[in-house]
């Protein structure tokens, strides 16, 4: 191909480019740079968070056992804590599934001391099950308590170790 032909092609491409830039400036249209999010994403994200938290607690239990740390009381108590957090996550996921995801349950406060649990199919069993699920602090408080006790034990062991090193 001759040099003359090449320069002609280059000139044509420059012209096309200039026309496209001019068109974009002079004739603007709607741009969708960010994606819109539906309101259900919030509960899905929250549920995934619970599942991730649950998974991490399972990993913790197996890692502590795998390293042989369960021989120490402190780490054993931390394992118990992880177990209760797993139960709590299951509780929370189930509760959120009923009231936020499928909207099968709804609470209506009647007074300071009374409330009404409205289920979509009027099932008293589901209502009672949901009532129990709402008492989730009975799982997460012991979980935190076991964590505290575990850490306390590790502190005692570390202090004893430090004292032993000091006497050597």
């Amino acid at each position, binding site marked *: 191909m001759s040099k003359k032909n090449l320069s002609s092609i280059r000139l044509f491409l420059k012209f096309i480019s200039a026309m496209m830039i001019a068109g974009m400036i002079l004739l603007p249209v709607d741009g969708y740079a960010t994606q819109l999010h539906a309101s259900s994403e*919030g509960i899905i994200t929250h549920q995934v*968070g619970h599942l*991730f938290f649950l998974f*991490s607690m399972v*990993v913790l239990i197996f890692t502590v056992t795998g390293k042989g740390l369960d021989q120490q009381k402190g780490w054993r108590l931390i394992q118990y804590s992880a177990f209760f957090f797993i139960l709590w996550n299951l509780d929370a996921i189930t509760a959120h599934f009923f009231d936020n995801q499928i909207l099968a349950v709804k609470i209506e*406060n009647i007074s300071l001391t009374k409330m009404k649990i409205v289920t979509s199919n009027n099932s*008293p069993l589901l209502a009672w099950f949901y009532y129990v699920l709402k008492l989730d602090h009975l799982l997460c408080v012991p979980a*935190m*308590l076991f964590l505290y006790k575990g850490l306390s034990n590790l502190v005692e062991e570390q202090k004893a170790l*430090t004292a032993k090193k000091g006497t050597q």
Partner: protein
Amino acid sequence: MTTSFIPILAVDVLGSVAMVVIALLSLYKAKILRILDPDNAVFLYLLWISTGFTVFAVSRAFGHILKQFLVLSANIETWHAISSYSGSINTVSFMLVGLITIFFNQIWNINVKILSGREKLENTHIELMDLNQTLEQKVIERTERLTSSEHKCRRIFEQSLDTIIVTDSDFKIMEINLAGITLTGYTRDEMIMKKMTAGSFFADPAEWDRIRHKIGSEEYILNEEAEFLRPDNEALLVLITGGIDYGAFGCAKSFHFIIKNVNEKRQMERQIAQADKLAALGELSAGVAHEINNPLGIILGYSQLLLKQAPEHQDDLKIIEKHVQNCKTVVSDLLSFSRKGSPEMSIVDINKVVDGVVKFLSNHSDFRNIEMSLNPYTGDRLNILGNEQELAQVMLNLVINACHAVDGKGKIDITTEKAKDEKILIIVKDNGKGIDKKNLTRIFDPFFTTKPVGQGTGLGLSVGYGIIKRHNGDIRVTSSKENGTVFTISLPADRTAT
């Protein structure tokens, strides 16, 4: 379903408060752990977890309590407005806890490496401290050990009864021990100043060349026999063992030799062989002499009888008688050489015997130009148990032989000594032409002589040897062309006489 709200409210509010309190207490404990061991990555991890749980507990408690308050105070709309934010914070907080937890395995592995490294570092630090504190002591101990080792090696080198020589790569002597100086006859300075080599001691340079090539090719020599020549021309038989040292710590290549003097041992072996040979010859001579003696007696008797009865053949018969007498003398000498025991033994003063022989011979015409000196032992009397005539005969033979060795003009020294081991020594030394090396082992053989035919029977030294052996003594000879010949007779002293 309508039911009581109190249990849910109570558990929610009290639980939230309890969560916050316990989470804060956990954070406190984790903080203590971190303070107790700031380098422990697992404790740092527990601090992060506790922080995450605290954030989680606080955000959750805040949300729950606020919710209950707003719901009970009929502000449900407000709660709906902020519930999304509260829930989001809550979600983020427990996802954070989960995220931190998921990395526990990695954190643990890092911590194990850190702790292992720290332990090694601490151990190294302790060792370094210990080394630093005891370095001076260790240097002193090592120096003492080195000095002791060097002293031992030096003692072995200096006090070894065998010669030890260290040479450079050109076999020039670098070090030689005291035994080596005694053996070679050179002083240490002389060897080093003259740049003498190990080959300088060899009597035969070809022998040194052979040994040098062997050590060069095989890197060692083992018990190689060689002859050394001392500055006083004394020859010594030695066994040489040696090897190459390629050097360490930058030292140059060198050769090490250990030289053992086996001269006396070899001489002893030769003497034993000589004694065995002479004993065998003695047995043979005794048998021959006995068989010849009787016919000679008969020939002599008949020739003497014929001399009386047939005077016409007198000249012939006298020739027969003379030669028979000569034969009888030879036979008598042979019997003297081989006789087992001496018939007449008495206490004999060696000085007296030697003096008598010297006086007798000094008047002889052959000794006119010979300077004969007698050096008798001046201490106790040198008494032995023996036969005076036989001992005088031995001395006579030795001195006459010495006279022949100096060709009638020279010097003969006769010395008597008392050795430490109750032995009496008679030493006859001349400055004559010496005895050839090849003849030295044969001089005591019967009929061996270097004199012209008719001048000697070759029985003198054999008879002397037989006599001395019968006296439980020993006779030895050393000879060289330059220094002449030395005969040494050793006889056991008579202890009863002293």
